[in-house]
C-alpha cells in the first residue's frame, strides 16, 4: 500500500499511458501506473506456429468478448452495429494493432468550419506536427517523406519505407495509370534495426503480436525507459473508481489486485489512458454525491460521441501468385485520392485506404467475410484462387460524432471483479453508409484496373472497432466538452485524459499516431505547468 502520493498516477499502460509515463518519469515526476493486464513475452505470440490461424480466432482475438480472459472486461454490445476491439496488457491494444501510422490531415481539425458539421478541434495540424515528429522517432516509424496528401516541410519518417509487396506494386501501377494518389504507407514497424529492436521479417501476423519486436508497442518502446527513469508499473491492477476530495480534486484511485484485495493509490494528478471505452466507464463508475452523473461530467458528454470508424474491406483476386499471406499487416500502400469532402458525392468527409495482406489457408477456406463459402470438389479451386492471390483495400471512413452513440454502464453485466461492464450503443450513420458505398465502388475500380478478376466486398465489418474515439472530447467551452485543449478535465483541474477519448472528430485515418502525439503534447504541458498544477491538500 502506497502512503506517499504519486506525482502522477496513470491508469492504463497502453499507447498513450506509455508515452506519458516515459515523458514524465524522465522529467523527474514520481510516476505510478495501474494496468489490469500483464506483460507479454514475444515468444508467446503464435505467428510462427501451426496454430496461428486457430488461436487468432479465440485466445488472440482482437475482441475481449471473444477472448474472455480474466484481465478483459466484457462489453455489452447488443445495441452496437460494430464491436469494440482492444487488449489489456502492458503495451495495450498496440500488441494487436496493425501498426499503420498515418497522421490526421489539416482539414480534419476544422470539420465544422469547412463542412458545417461536427466540430472544430481546439488545435490544428501545425500545432500537433512537432509531436508527430517526436513520436515518429520514439516509436520508430518507417515511411517515405514528401507525400502530397500532407503539407510540405518538417521531418521525414526516421526509417526507410517497408516493401510494398507484389500486390502493392500491382495496385501502385494501376493508380499511376488512373492518375490517382498512392503512397507507401507509414508504419510503426521497423524496416531496419533501431533503438535495440530488430526489423520486420514480413511474417504478416502483426495483429496477433510481433515475435520480432519490430512492430512498436509501448511495452518495448516506452515502458523500459520509463521504469529505468523511476516509474512504477503495477500489473494485474483493476481500477474500480477515482476518489475526490471536498475541493473537487481527484485524490487517487481505488483498485483491486488479482486476488480481489482492495487498495488505494494516492496521487497529486491522475491521468486516464484506458481507451475510449474504459475511460468513460471509469469516470461514470466514479460518480459520487458531488458528481452524480459521473466524474468530470458537468457537460453530460462523458461516454457520448463514441466514434469507431465504420470499415469496409474490398478484396481483389488475381491470377498470379502474389504470396499475399506475407508482408506487414500495417499496410503496404495507402491512398488519399478521395479523402477530402466533395459534396457532389452525396456525403461529407472521406476515407483513407490501406492495402493489407490476406492471411493463410484456413482463412481462405472458411466462409469469407464477404459471405462466400465453397464446399465439395470445388473447395480446392476456391482455396487456390484465394490463398496468396489477393490484395485487400481496407477503407476507414470518417465517423461523425453523434451524442446517441455512447458508452454507458450496464445494469446487468459485470467483469470478474463484479464491477459494472460498459454497455455500448452505436449506430452507423447514413452519411457513413453513403461514404462507404462510394469508396467501395472506387476501391473496386482500383483493383480491377490492377488486374483483379474478382472483387469481393465486406460492406460493413462487425469486428472492426479497432479505433475507439471521442467519449471525453476536448474543447474550449466547458458546457460542450469534457477536456480543455491540454487534455485536462474542465471540472477537475488535476485530472487528465490522454487516450482516444479526447478526439473531437474521428478523421478517416488510423488514429494511434494522433493519440500518442496528443498524449505527448499533454505530458509536455504537465511538465511545463508543473509549478502551477493544483493538487489535493
Amino acid at each position, binding site marked *: 500500500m502506497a502512503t506517499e502520493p504519486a506525482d502522477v498516477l496513470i491508469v492504463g499502460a497502453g499507447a498513450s499511458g506509455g508515452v506519458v509515463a516515459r515523458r514524465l518519469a524522465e522529467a523527474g515526476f514520481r510516476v505510478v501506473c495501474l494496468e489490469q493486464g500483464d506483460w507479454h513475452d514475444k515468444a508467446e505470440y503464435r505467428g510462427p506456429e501451426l496454430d496461428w490461424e486457430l488461436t487468432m480466432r479465440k485466445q488472440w482475438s482482437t475482441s475481449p468478448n471473444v477472448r474472455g480472459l480474466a484481465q478483459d472486461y466484457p462489453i455489452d454490445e447488443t445495441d452496437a452495429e460494430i464491436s469494440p476491439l482492444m487488449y489489456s496488457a502492458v503495451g495495450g491494444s498496440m500488441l494487436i494493432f496493425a501498426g499503420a501510422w498515418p497522421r490526421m*490531415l489539416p482539414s480534419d481539425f476544422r470539420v465544422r468550419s469547412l463542412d458545417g458539421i461536427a466540430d472544430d478541434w481546439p488545435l490544428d495540424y501545425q500545432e500537433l506536427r512537432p509531436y508527430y515528429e517526436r513520436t515518429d522517432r520514439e516509436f520508430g516509424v518507417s515511411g517515405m517523406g514528401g507525400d502530397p496528401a500532407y503539407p510540405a516541410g518538417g521531418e521525414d519518417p526516421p526509417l526507410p519505407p517497408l516493401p510494398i509487396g507484389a500486390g502493392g506494386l500491382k495496385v501502385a501501377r494501376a493508380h499511376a495509370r488512373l492518375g490517382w494518389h498512392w503512397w507507401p504507407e507509414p508504419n510503426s514497424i521497423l524496416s531496419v534495426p533501431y533503438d535495440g529492436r530488430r526489423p520486420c*521479417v514480413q511474417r504478416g501476423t502483426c495483429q496477433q503480436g510481433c515475435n520480432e519486436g519490430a512492430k512498436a508497442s509501448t511495452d518495448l518502446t516506452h515502458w523500459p525507459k520509463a521504469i529505468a527513469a523511476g516509474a512504477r508499473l503495477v500489473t494485474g491492477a483493476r481500477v474500480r473508481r477515482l476518489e475526490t476530495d471536498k475541493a473537487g480534486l481527484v485524490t487517487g484511485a481505488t483498485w483491486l489486485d488479482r486476488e480481489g484485495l482492495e487498495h488505494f493509490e494516492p496521487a497529486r494528478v491522475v491521468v486516464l489512458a484506458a481507451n475510449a471505452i474504459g475511460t468513460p466507464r471509469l469516470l461514470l463508475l466514479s460518480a459520487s454525491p458531488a458528481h452524480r452523473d459521473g466524474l468530470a461530467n458537468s457537460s453530460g458528454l462523458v461516454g457520448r460521441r463514441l466514434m469507431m470508424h465504420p470499415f469496409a474491406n474490398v478484396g481483389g483476386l488475381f491470377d498470379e501468385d502474389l504470396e499475399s499471406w506475407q508482408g506487414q499487416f500495417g499496410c503496404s500502400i495507402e491512398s488519399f485520392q478521395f479523402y477530402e*469532402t466533395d459534396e457532389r458525392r452525396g456525403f461529407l468527409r472521406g476515407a483513407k485506404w490501406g492495402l493489407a495482406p490476406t492471411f493463410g489457408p484456413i482463412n481462405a477456406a472458411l*466462409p469469407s467475410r464477404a459471405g462466400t463459402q465453397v464446399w465439395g470438389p470445388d*473447395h480446392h479451386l476456391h482455396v487456390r484462387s484465394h490463398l496468396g492471390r489477393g490484395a485487400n483495400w481496407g477503407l476507414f471512413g470518417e465517423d461523425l460524432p453523434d451524442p446517441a452513440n455512447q458508452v454507458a454502464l450496464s445494469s446487468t453485466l459485470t467483469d470478474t471483479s463484479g464491477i459494472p461492464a460498459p454497455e455500448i450503443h452505436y449506430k452507423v450513420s447514413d452519411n457513413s453508409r453513403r461514404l462507404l458505398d462510394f469508396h467501395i465502388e472506387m476501391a473496386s475500380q482500383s483493383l480491377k484496373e490492377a488486374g483483379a478478376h474478382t472483387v469481393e466486398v465486406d460492406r460493413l465489418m462487425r469486428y472492426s472497432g479497432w479505433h475507439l474515439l471521442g467519449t471525453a472530447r476536448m474543447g474550449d467551452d466547458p458546457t460542450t466538452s469534457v477536456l480543455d485543449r491540454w487534455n485536462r478535465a474542465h471540472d477537475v483541474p488535476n485530472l487528465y485524459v490522454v487516450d482516444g477519448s479526447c478526439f473531437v472528430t474521428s478523421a478517416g485515418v488510423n488514429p494511434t499516431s494522433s493519440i500518442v502525439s496528443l498524449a505527448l503534447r499533454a505530458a509536455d504541458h504537465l511538465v511545463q505547468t508543473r509549478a502551477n498544477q493544483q493538487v489535493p491538500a
Partner: protein
Amino acid sequence: MSDVLDRFDAAPRATLTALAAHLIPAAHGMPSAGDVIDDRRLRFVLEARPDLLEPLRTALGTGLPEDPAARLAVLERDEPDAHAALLLVVVGAYYTDKVVRERLRYPGQEAKVLQSWKYPVYLEEGLLDGVQARGAIWRDPTTGRTAMEARPAPAAPAERRA
C-alpha cells in the same frame, strides 16, 4: 493426463470423417479431409482450441441426420455455433497437415530478411512521379480549397540513388 480424444468414441469419430469427406473431398490433386484428419490432426486442433470440444460434440451427436449434407443443413439452421465449430475443426485439421500445405505450396508464415538497401521497383518505374507532379491534394483549412504548394520536381532515378 487425459487425452482430449477420450471424449469421442467410434460413432462420432466416424461421423466426423464422413462430414470432413463431404466438405473437402479428394479432387483437383488434393486429398480428402476424411483421409487427412486422423487422431493426430484432431488432437492438434482441440489442444489448440479446447473451447471447440463441446460444440463439436454437439455437431457430431445423435438425433441429427446421418446424411452429411442433411446434417450440415440442420446444424447451420439450428445450431450455428456447433456448425461453425465443425467447419473450423475440419479446416483447421486439414490445412495444418504437412502434405496438404506442400501441395498448396504454402510454407507457413515465414521470416524473411528485409532487403532495405534495394532500390524499390516502384521508384525505378517512376510510379510516384505522377503523384508528386500533380502536387498537393490536401485541403487547406484557411481557404477551404486544395492547397497551392510548390513541390520539388520528382528526382530522376540516378539522383535518387545518389
